[in-house]
């Protein structure tokens, strides 16, 4: 199964919220939907789910116009919301039936997910009696109740402690492996890097970056080298060597870091020359590898670019 958004454009009044957005999400993979606040992520999600139509463009499943009666969605909105005063099991069954389950199946599924999230004992309590983290787990259970084909998670990890975050991680991985399409929107880049094979970065309604996360990272210049020495004194010697011109003109910059130093080369082809110079220093080398940019760096750089352009 493949979900795609093709040239989706949406305006609210004068404001262009989405401008020619393309997205592809495949079964068994997680897609990271990234963007700063107000970039248009929620609008894109709503268009995918059919809350409102795009001004132009299409949403397709397997190259055919999406039929929302045959594709089941599970949506965890960023603005969490259920009925605070209603009993948990009641409302879980309700949302299950709204998405096409029979009452009986909905009840079975609700109980299964409550158990999965270790929330079984709360099934007859009103939602508002639960802690924020537990409410969050109920919200996730509601998202998954109808065994959705497409799961859209907007900031699923906010408000969860490490134990529950681990539990959720396990469930998300399990869903991805079982062949679901997962769209994952978050500002917590470490989670995105962990789960997502592909990303779509949008800013002010425009696509900034799209594609396989590995390839994106590899496409960046591979001129940043992480170096680790056994002896911490070696870093000082390396800096003086650079300042005295002993490294020639291949090194642009040296940043000291907690666990070593990052050397930025003028040209990535000079890597072996750098290594040779390091060996000549005579200290024992523990690490020498190309440091890829983190998603966070890419995000800040790309979104920053966008700001400058405007």
């Amino acid at each position, binding site marked *: 199964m493949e979900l795609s958004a093709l040239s989706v454009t949406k305006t609210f*009044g004068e404001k262009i919220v989405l401008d020619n957005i393309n997205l592809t999400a495949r079964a068994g993979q997680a897609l990271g939907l990234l963007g700063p606040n107000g970039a248009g992520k929620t609008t894109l999600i*709503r268009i995918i*789910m*059919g*809350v*409102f*139509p795009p001004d132009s463009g299409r949403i397709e499943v397997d190259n055919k116009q999406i039929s929302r*009666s045959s594709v089941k*969605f599970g*949506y965890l*909105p960023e*603005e*969490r*919301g*259920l*009925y*605070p005063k*209603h009993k948990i099991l*009641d409302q879980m069954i*309700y*949302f299950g*039936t*709204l*998405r*096409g389950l029979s009452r009986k199946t909905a009840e079975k599924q609700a109980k299964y997910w409550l158990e999965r999230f270790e929330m079984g004992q709360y099934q007859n309590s009103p939602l508002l009696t639960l802690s924020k983290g537990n409410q969050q787990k109920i919200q996730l259970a*509601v998202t998954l109740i109808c065994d959705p084909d497409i799961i859209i998670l907007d900031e699923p990890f906010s408000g969860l402690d490490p134990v529950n975050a681990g539990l959720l991680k396990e469930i998300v991985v399990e869903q991805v492996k079982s062949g679901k399409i997962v769209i994952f929107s978050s500002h917590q880049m470490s989670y995105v890097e962990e789960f997502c094979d592909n990303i779509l970065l949008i800013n002010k309604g425009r696509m900034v970056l799209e594609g396989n996360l590995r390839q994106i990272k590899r496409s960046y210049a591979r001129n940043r080298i992480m170096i680790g020495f056994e002896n911490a004194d070696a870093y000082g010697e390396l800096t003086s060597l650079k300042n005295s011109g002993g490294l020639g003109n291949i090194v642009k910059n040296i940043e000291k870091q907690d666990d070593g130093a990052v050397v930025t080369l003028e040209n990535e082809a000079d890597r072996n020359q750098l290594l040779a110079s390091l060996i000549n220093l005579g200290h024992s080398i523990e690490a020498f590898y190309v440091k890829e940019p983190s998603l966070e760096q890419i995000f800040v750089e790309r979104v920053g670019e966008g700001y400058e352009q405007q």
Partner: protein
Amino acid sequence: MNSSNLGQIRNVAAYEFRQLTKSKVFLSSTIIVAIIILILTTVVPFFLNDLKVGDFSPISDENQDTIVVKRGGVISVHDVDGSIKDKELFESIFLSFELEFADRPYDEAVAERIREGQIKGAIQAKEGKFEIYSKSSMISNFPYEVSQLITTYCQYRAMNEKGLSYEQAAEVFAPPEVNIINAGGKSADDTYMLTYLLIMVLYISVMLYGQMVSVSVATEKNSRAMELLITSAKPNNLIFGKILGVGLAGLSQIAVWIIISTVMLQINSSFWKKVPMLSGLLEAPLYLFVLMFLFYILGYFMYAAMFGALGSLVSRVEDISATSTPVALLYVSGFLISMFGMMNPDSLMMKICSFIPFYAPMCMFVRVSMTDVSMLEVAISLVLTAATAVFLGWLSAKIYRVGVLMYGKAPSFKELGKIIKTLKNAKSY
């Protein structure tokens, strides 16, 4: 509309119905009103029976050992110059009062007793004229009652002075048997109370449940449950399901009350039949209730649709009252028109208003209930109201669809029109 839509509407309606009827507010209001009905229908007959002060007859029946209860209270009678010639007659006419005769004129001491409530009032007779003293009060008809009794006394005296005995005078005063028979179909008097009650039920319940729809929509928006609802079900199904569910909860509440009232009225029917304005209630024809049901459904749907749309426009429950004021005023004006119209249900205003859909449920109902209206007129009114209800349902679904995702300030009607226009071309995509 396909079966999955119907299923969704049914799911929404069932959930709304269950949650509403389970809520403490709903249960307690149902029970409290039921208790009030029980109290009114059991206590009032005894109370009214008790209040019936024995009919006055100046001729005391010697053979009957009657214990006269002096309910009216004490009246101090100041007969300064012997104007009351026949004290015995005077006393027998003031049967229900305890009289204290005195020769001295009315003075401050007596006034003090009246003020302190020791005595009900005082009468001063002087030179054939009477003065009545009492504490003035909105609800007391004491002075009128006393003045009537004095008039009766004077009439008997005058007859007696012309040579008639009191018995003969009593015969003169005996009212002839006159029966008022209504030749013009329904009697407005008989149906007044019934219509009044039913209009009240119609008014209160449509208002109550209509606003409940808007509160419910705004609450979902406020708690952001809407985010999930709108992505789980079609907006049309959500709003119509809600209107249906709340309406059914309302109907079942009213049904409970009507059943209790009917049973209680039947139990005491011998009493209620004697109360002139209520007698119509027991003999009300079935079609009146059927018609009331129809108008209730249409009126409720019409106003609930409007209230629901308004509820979707506000972000906080507190803002509803301000936003829904225009609709509430429209509805209250219809209620007032029909209430005043009950004085004269055949008036031109009532005829016109009974064809204005917003007013028709109450105004046409008043006319049908109190006068004779042709079936054609009723049918036209029903069709017009139904058409308006359908149109408003359609419009409110459009507004709801846009409104539920808008947070912040409620949009003006102009802004709203623009947004709906942009949606118009986008078919159910």
